[in-house]
């Protein structure tokens, strides 16, 4: 019951903000807020693999791309038949059905990719896993570059936007992502993920099937990356393979490292921070990478556990326990 009230209130607040936000802050800042939301989804999901489970993946942009392109092509090619199937709904309802189906398809496709990459590669550790995931991200991008039906190098430009309420949708899924991953981390599953990060041999000896749980964390993470991709595609109505280079994966890593590996609050903070800095210094273009490297070095030197520190997620839980 309390859960239902929470979601209803959240939806009402988001809808209310949606009505007013663009008017308050203008179209430019509105766009940054939406992009920050998408980055929160990506960072919080990547944090599940890199921070909580301790597996170093630098191919998150690959799952992001798969989500974006799957959803975009699903809606692009399937629009008329799905509209036919739900013709009884008003235009607005049809759009919503299409959008949600697109998100669902994107999450599924990215999840399947997660299994396909995870099963063979999670036998690898540390640097080797990082190289495989990096390779996966680049392979995905190059594949997209060479499929002409979805635009290839020109980019995919006929994506129906389906909604004018992207702030609402993006932040609804931010809430879904954060609550899902937060709940997961604070369960038996979460303890299993963390135990793998801390000591794989001990985890296995305590009955945690480490291979299975690594793949599970990988799959959940990639599904949310897929959702982020889907929202991004419909929001910008145009996709270009160059959005999904390893530089994107690298920015996502910066977000979670600066925020504090393993901390959900840290990932959110990191995502907002990096999005804002990227925008603020847009005029510097490539030099921003230099700035981020300096930022990373400074964080490593002065606050190696990240801004929030990795214990953030446990603090959450203690407060909750006291409230009960």
């Amino acid at each position, binding site marked *: 019951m309390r859960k239902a009230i929470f979601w209803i209130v959240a939806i009402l607040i988001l809808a209310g903000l949606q009505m007013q936000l663009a008017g308050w802050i203008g179209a430019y800042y509105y766009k940054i807020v939406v992009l920050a939301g998408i980055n929160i989804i990506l960072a919080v999901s990547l944090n599940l693999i890199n921070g909580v489970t301790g597996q170093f993946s630098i191919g998150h942009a690959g799952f992001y791309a798969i989500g974006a392109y799957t959803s975009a092509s699903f809606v692009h090619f399937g629009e008329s038949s799905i509209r036919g199937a739900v013709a009884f709904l008003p235009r607005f309802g049809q759009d919503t059905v299409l959008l949600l189906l697109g998100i669902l398809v994107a999450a599924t496709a990215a999840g399947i990719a997660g299994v396909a990459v995870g099963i063979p590669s999670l036998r690898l550790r540390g640097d080797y896993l990082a190289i495989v995931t990096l390779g996966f991200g680049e392979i995905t991008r190059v594949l997209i570059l060479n499929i002409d039906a979805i635009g290839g190098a020109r980019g995919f430009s006929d994506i129906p936007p389906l909604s004018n309420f992207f702030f609402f949708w993006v932040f609804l899924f931010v809430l879904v992502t954060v609550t899902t991953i937060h709940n997961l981390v604070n*369960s*038996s599953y*979460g303890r299993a993920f963390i135990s793998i990060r*801390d*000591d794989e041999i001990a985890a296995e000896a*305590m009955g*945690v099937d480490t291979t299975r749980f690594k793949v599970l964390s990988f799959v959940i993470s990639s599904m949310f990356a897929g959702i982020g991709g889907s929202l991004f595609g419909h929001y910008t109505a145009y996709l270009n393979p160059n959005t999904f280079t390893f530089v994107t994966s690298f920015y996502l890593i910066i977000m979670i490292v600066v925020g504090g590996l393993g901390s959900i609050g840290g990932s959110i903070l990191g995502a907002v921070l990096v999005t804002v800095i990227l925008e603020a210094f847009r005029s510097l273009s490539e030099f921003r990478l230099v700035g981020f490297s300096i930022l990373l070095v400074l964080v490593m030197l002065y606050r190696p556990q990240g801004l929030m520190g990795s214990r953030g997620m446990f603090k959450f839980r203690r407060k909750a326990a006291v409230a009960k």
Partner: protein
Amino acid sequence: MGLLDIRDCTKKFGGLVAVRNLNMSLAPGSLYGLIGPNGAGKTTVFNLITGVYTPDQGSIELDGKAIHKKKPSSIARLGMSRTFQNIRLFKSMTVLENVKLARHMKRKQSLFDAVTRTKLLKDEERQIEHDATELLKIFHLDSRAGELASNLPYGAQRRLEIARALATDPKVLLLDEPAAGMNPQESIELMGLIRTVRDRFQLTVLLVEHNMKVVMGICERIQVIDYGETIALGSPKEIQDDPRVIEAYLGGA
């Protein structure tokens, strides 16, 4: 036939035979000691039993089920738990969470329960918390339940490892040098603790230990290995008098 049976096990690493034709049988409820000089293959035996290594020959059975081809996590599920020679606690978790993790394989919650926090999950989490706290009380660790495991003093970390191993509800408990690094007083307390735990949880305990006082003091049956082969097997008294054991430890006269 015992609860844990090792039959003709051999494990080679390249040209080195770490364990050769080893036989071992643990009667249910026994306190069994495995000793030998450094490099005798004791830890290899542990790793064979717990599934870290697969034997090249021979078989290992737990309660009549062959376990020598299974993964460590599956063996743990069948009722085998262990501690480590070099302590392997989950360092970023609290003392309580370390024990709670060990209840993992008894969980009933599904992924769906975990994500949506159903009543089943909340009840189960409460139960796990309760069980873990009870266990910590036995080991006098309940006052430090909220501390990070890595902040505990050494002796307490050893006890926590045993508590964590017990949280998996094992039939067989393997202790790899539990008294290592402990002072005489702590060792004596540990001996009492191991006995209490065995009686209270009706366990079968296999102990690897260098501290002869501990081994001779609590084990009912001792097996001595050297260069991967059994050289003696018997009660503590018999072992102490065995000329081959004396030779292995002190060198030939």
